[in-house]
């Protein structure tokens, strides 16, 4: 399982146009990153808050619904955020 995930991450990283990947755990602390430390921390902190808000909004409107992914497009680039699934 882990090997598959690692491989997929490598593939994504090797795609044209992908600047970096950051994996963040449930508390918002980055576990893995292909960017430098300061950027990672910056991205992780900001993204986590936005994700919580977005998810809260979706679920508030319909509790059976859940956020699949979130794209933030800006002038210079695009940030793609996909929240993980909670396990018991």
């Amino acid at each position, binding site marked *: *399982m*882990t090997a*598959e*995930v*690692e491989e*997929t*991450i490598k*593939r*994504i990283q090797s*795609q*044209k*146009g*992908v600047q970096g*990947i950051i*994996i963040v*755990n449930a508390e918002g602390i980055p*576990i*893995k990153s292909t960017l430098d430390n300061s950027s990672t921390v910056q991205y992780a902190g900001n993204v986590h808050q936005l994700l919580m808000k977005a998810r*809260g909004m979706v*679920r*508030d409107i319909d*509790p*059976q619904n859940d956020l*699949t*992914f979130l*794209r933030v497009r800006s002038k210079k680039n*695009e940030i*793609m955020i*996909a*929240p*993980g*699934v*909670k*396990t*018991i």
Partner: protein
Amino acid sequence: MTAITLYIFSLKMQAPNVNSHQKAAVAKGVKDEEEGLDTAEGEEWMQGKTLVKPPDQLDLTEAELNEEITRVLKASNPNAPQNVVRYSFKEGCYKPIVFVDQMAIHFELEGNLVHKESDEGRRLMAKQAEVDDGGGVERPDNVAIKAAKREQKLTNQFNFNERASQTLNNTPRDISCQTEPPPRANFSATANQWEIYDFYVEELQRREKSKEKHEGQFLNKEEDKSKKKMIQNDDISQLAKVVKIIERMVNQNIFDDVAQDFMYFEDASDEFRGEKGTLLPLWTFQYDKAKSLSVTALCWNHKYNDLFAVGLGSHEFTQQGGGMLLFYTLKNPSYPEFIFNTASGVMCLDIHEHLSYLVAVGLYDGCVAVYNLKKKTDQPIYNSRASSGKHTSAVMQVKWQKDDLDSNHNFISVSADGRLVSWTLVKHELVFTEIIKLPVIDTIPDDLKDVIPTVGTSLDFHKQKDYSFLVGTEHGKIHKGSKYYSSKFLEKYDAHFMNVTRVKWNPFHPDVFISCGWDWMVKIWDQTMKSPVFTFELKTSVTDVAWAPYSSTVFAAVTTDGKVHVFDLNINKYEALCQQKVVSKKTKLFNIEFNPVHPIIIVGDDRGHVTSLKLSPNLRKKPKVGDALILCIVIEHLNILTLDENVLEPH
């Protein structure tokens, strides 16, 4: 000590109106008694005075003044209360007390006289004696007195005795013990509607799990193992799903224009092109490990319309290596979703119509295998390696059938050894049933008939009457058979000079089928007629042909020169609407499949690449009248015109 009190009976004055004369006389009398010691001069002074009337005295008449008034001396206390009431608990009410104490105390004095004979008197007398004999003259008396005194216990009037002793006080000591503080953790949470919902869902799941546990106790061990796995699992492996989503998002971005074309692009120039249409190339699917292999089979998944299966192997007899089974989705063109390695080249595959996770694969070495996509393993769940009924030569086509009477899944395969075999998935193995053997052609001498088989190359089952099937052979013949007749075929069509590469029933018309072969021909047949209804000659060997799912008159064919030909019989009965080269030079196309829902086709070539193409609107014209009817009309029309005009009978 006895108290002496004086009791004085007091005079009570009864009449308020008193004669002033009498009063004066009384006053005088009293005064006389009290001041008895006064001199006579006082008396004289009193007598010399005349009667003085106080100003506020009542004026009474003579008669009233002379009235006799009796005064009584009583022994009752004028100050004693007359109407004392006491609460009687017996009767529960207040009751007046009749007998009231009439005693009035006027004077009280506590005396200090002690009786001689009493204890205290004697004590005092003894003390007095001691004091008097202070000189110490009569010492023996003194001693006697002292002894007497000592004999008498000095007690107070209550005979009270007190004894006390002091015990040793232990020194107080402080003992304290400090415990470790209980572990504390800060806890904060939010209570939202969706958190409550999540909790309820988890609770339900837990209950279901516990129910299952009760039902199947042997599952306990597995559950424990899985629990352990969950604890030991790294954070990363839980991301499998999420990472997949991200990969698809990235791909969507990269191939954004292609995706837009796929959804929305309609070639406007089709209006100006008359009947002709074009094919717009969309995504290309390739896998670098499959570079040396060529595509041998393609199949769309019916349930998930963006998923398709690619079988990779080799058509060449001489170049045989391993094979692969790949699944791609249109959502991720850069990497296959599922990858299976097979020992020998895949020659054909079929996805079950209803259970879209079951895939039957036929291999070059004659084995058939069934893969279950739901399982994570790389190995097929069923493999015909060990079983004895395996084909001795390459399996050319497999097709799933409806579940049999025991609701076991089964499929039928045709192979190069000339046999049609039905395989049933029973529990953990494949059970084979021979259905029919392809008839040997006449040119082979009788004694070799059993040895040299007729290579079956293609197989198709009728959509509605699924007992009826068609088999194409290497010699160019097409045999129509039925599952119920295992001894011989119902019909034989002399279709092509060379290898029949594909036969397919028309999805709408019950009698029409199409065939193509290496002899450059594509022929459309009516099963009731011995000769084809339509014949088309394409410039090179035709490797595959497919009917369109949206129209009964549209079909497409691929040839070895890399071209895709699309025909619509409703529009043009003689030539293709589109003949387009879709791959680079010297690449042969081997397979073509229409997507059941979207207006795209996929073609497989010998480099292992799969190219997807979008059909332009001209190629997608849906007939207004009922589907099968159109084809009937077309055929009828043709029959009326000529019978032999467009028929080339191969003999």
